């Protein structure tokens, strides 16, 4: 009997429920129509800009700075592009599709794919960028599109380009070169320091072009601070990824002033500038042990300040100066040599001892010369005669100065490192070393 009641109740519920057709959607359109509309709206927004879009894309803002792209999306499904590193127009296929949200997908290989190429950046892992971007929102005036990476959700902001943007993009690389200290022509002291009105501290910056990231060092209320700051370039100068705040004053944007060879702060209401100075505002613990310790070997310097290059150039009459190579271990099992290698690949070897003065200052003690097995430097008296010239004596005095050399790291990674060695005798004399660093 109970079962019969159950069947009858079920039947009644079914009959009444089946006929209930009164559901009203909150929306005018069905879900798939709304999804399709969202995709069309996204594509329309992307293709709406006559000159395309400019974006400072940070593929991995924890580790890397930005590459700036100019992207022009066409109705046909192609996107033409260029970037700030060098002038090389490129093109790829793109699509806008609905997966879990409206997505912009870079379909075929282009400059943009380099952000995910496992050959570029960290071996096997690349720069950490993505090829799929979700649409977040559009600014009220439609001039800015806010996108986010599909997986990591890091933002990509597209700003509407103008007729001038393409030519302005070509200005970016010179600022990068400036910060990287490549092809320096003007004699300046090494330390690139930021002073801001209202700050008690100066902030020193060393820039790594490989990772587009700045290494900032400063002393804040008696505490030495070090910070990695990803950077993007602009046609005027450069910007930090996020503001640097000291004493409640935030700075982020800088504009190059060619007349003063400095980068002025452009943030509203803030006055300050990055200038080349001879003062190191903050020292780093452990540098001498790390970079002149038992795990280091085969350091080579190929980038020199113009003043130091001029000092080395002309010492050896047979060939121009080429590079410096040394074994930087402070307690080497054999005499260390500081070798001046010339364009004919003959090397004048000064035997030295590296002495730790402080945590980041190393002194180079002169112990003699080492002759070669062939070539002009087999003859000790010839080496001594060169080093007895005015230039030779100046080189020896600088290298072996009692004030030593300050070690300023550019980037430290597992199997190799690069750092600048800055003369404390004359901070306009500096060289950039790359060395093999054995972590194991």
């Amino acid at each position, binding site marked *: 009997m109970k079962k019969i009641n159950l069947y009858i109740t079920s039947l009644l519920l079914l009959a009444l429920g089946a006929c209930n057709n009164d559901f009203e959607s909150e929306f005018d359109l069905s879900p798939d129509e709304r999804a399709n509309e969202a995709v069309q709206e996204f594509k329309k927004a992307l293709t709406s800009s006559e000159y395309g879009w400019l974006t400072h894309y940070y593929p991995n803002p924890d580790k890397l700075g930005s590459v700036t792209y100019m992207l022009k999306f066409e109705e046909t499904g192609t996107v033409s592009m260029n970037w700030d590193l060098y002038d090389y127009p490129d093109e790829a*296929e793109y699509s806008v599709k609905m997966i879990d949200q409206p997505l912009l997908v870079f379909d075929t*290989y282009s400059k943009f794919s380099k952000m995910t190429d496992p050959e570029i950046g960290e071996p096997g892992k690349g720069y950490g960028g993505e090829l799929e971007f979700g649409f977040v929102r559009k600014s009220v005036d439609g001039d800015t599109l806010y996108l986010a990476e599909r997986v990591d959700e890091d933002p990509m902001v597209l700003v509407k380009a103008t007729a001038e943007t393409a030519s302005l993009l070509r200005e970016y690389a010179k600022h990068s070169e400036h910060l990287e200290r490549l092809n320096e022509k003007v004699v300046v002291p090494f330390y690139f320091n930021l002073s801001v009105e209202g700050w008690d501290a100066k902030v020193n910056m060393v820039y790594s072009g490989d990772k587009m990231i700045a290494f900032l060092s400063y002393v804040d209320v008696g505490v030495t601070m070090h910070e990695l700051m990803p950077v993007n370039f602009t046609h005027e100068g450069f910007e930090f990824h996020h503001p640097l705040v000291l004493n409640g004053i935030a700075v982020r944007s800088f504009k190059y002033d060619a007349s003063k060879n400095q980068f002025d702060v452009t943030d509203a209401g803030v006055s300050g500038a990055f200038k080349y100075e001879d003062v190191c505002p903050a020292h780093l613990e452990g540098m001498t042990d790390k970079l002149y310790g038992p795990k280091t070997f085969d350091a080579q310097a190929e980038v020199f300040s113009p003043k130091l290059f001029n000092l080395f150039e002309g010492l050896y009459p047979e060939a121009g100066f080429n590079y410096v190579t040394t074994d930087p271990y402070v307690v080497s099992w054999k005499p260390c040599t500081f070798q001046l290698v010339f364009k004919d690949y003959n090397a004048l070897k000064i035997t030295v001892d590296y002495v730790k003065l402080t945590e980041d200052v190393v002194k180079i003690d002169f112990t003699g010369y080492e002759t070669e097995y062939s070539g002009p430097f087999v003859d000790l008296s010839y080496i001594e005669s060169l080093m007895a010239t005015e230039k030779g004596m100046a080189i020896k005095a600088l290298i072996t100065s009692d004030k030593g050399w300050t070690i300023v790291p550019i980037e430290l990674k597992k199997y190799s490192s690069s750092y600048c060695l800055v003369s404390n005798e004359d901070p306009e004399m500096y060289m950039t070393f790359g060395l093999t660093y054995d972590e194991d």
Partner: protein
Amino acid sequence: MKKILFLFFSVSILFSSCAKEDDLGKSLIDTSTPELNDVDQWIRENYTYPFNVEVKYRWDNSELDNSKILTPPAKDDVIPFLDNMKKIWIDPYVNAGGIDFMKRFIPKQMILIGSHNYNDNGSIVLGQAEGGRKISLFDLNYINFDFTGMSDWEKGKAMEPILRVFKTMHHEFGHILHQTVAYPIEYKKICTEYTSNWMNYSDSDARKLGFITGYSMLNPDEDFVEMLSVFLMSGNAGWNEIIDGIHIYDENWDYDKAAQDVAKGKIREKEKIMADYMLQVWNVNIYDLQNEIEGILTGIQSEE
């Protein structure tokens, strides 16, 4: 009573379901023809229509291992790659086994990837096959078929990734064949040193044990397809050179001829079983196939 109630219940559902003809609205499935560019059109004409193969060269995350860092291929590299794949792999098999043979066994979906596919240990995956239906090929952005202005040495270097990727195709295709009709069980008894630690053996070390490559030591199936792919991609002279080049030394650093003969004999015995199997089961003469592929590879290398 229960039966009557059940009948009544079912009839009620039937009538209530059919009471009204609902408008199902527009289909959720997009059946419109996508816009085809020149590459898409080429693929349709050369792969889809003749062999019912879908080639995906555009980025599609759903087709890939999401734990890997990969990039799509450059659009300009797609046609040269597929064109050469057709010449080096598909056409020779069509000529050897017939068009129906290839239509039946060719993987029906091919995914093209531009970058290397790195494993965590730094090794590189050249290709992946899934059940004979789908095949993923990597490294397209590192393959160049334009030999214009190259020296012989440069051509040789440029050929390395080409040989590698198409050896992979022959390897994966070999899997499809032996998974359809197994090769004779005698093949599995020729060598006994199969090991999951195959990566500890160089090709040279593996050959001393009667295997053609280090990877072929993983199991008899990999052994069989490695034999097939190396055989087809080496040319007759190259294949004989590989086998003749097996040298084993005794304790006095003299050639151990007996051991060499054993190793060479094992490879030759496997070659014979492989050749018989391909001919009897698939009507494919692998010596003719090897000869044709060699001619095509020579032609590619001599193109200016």
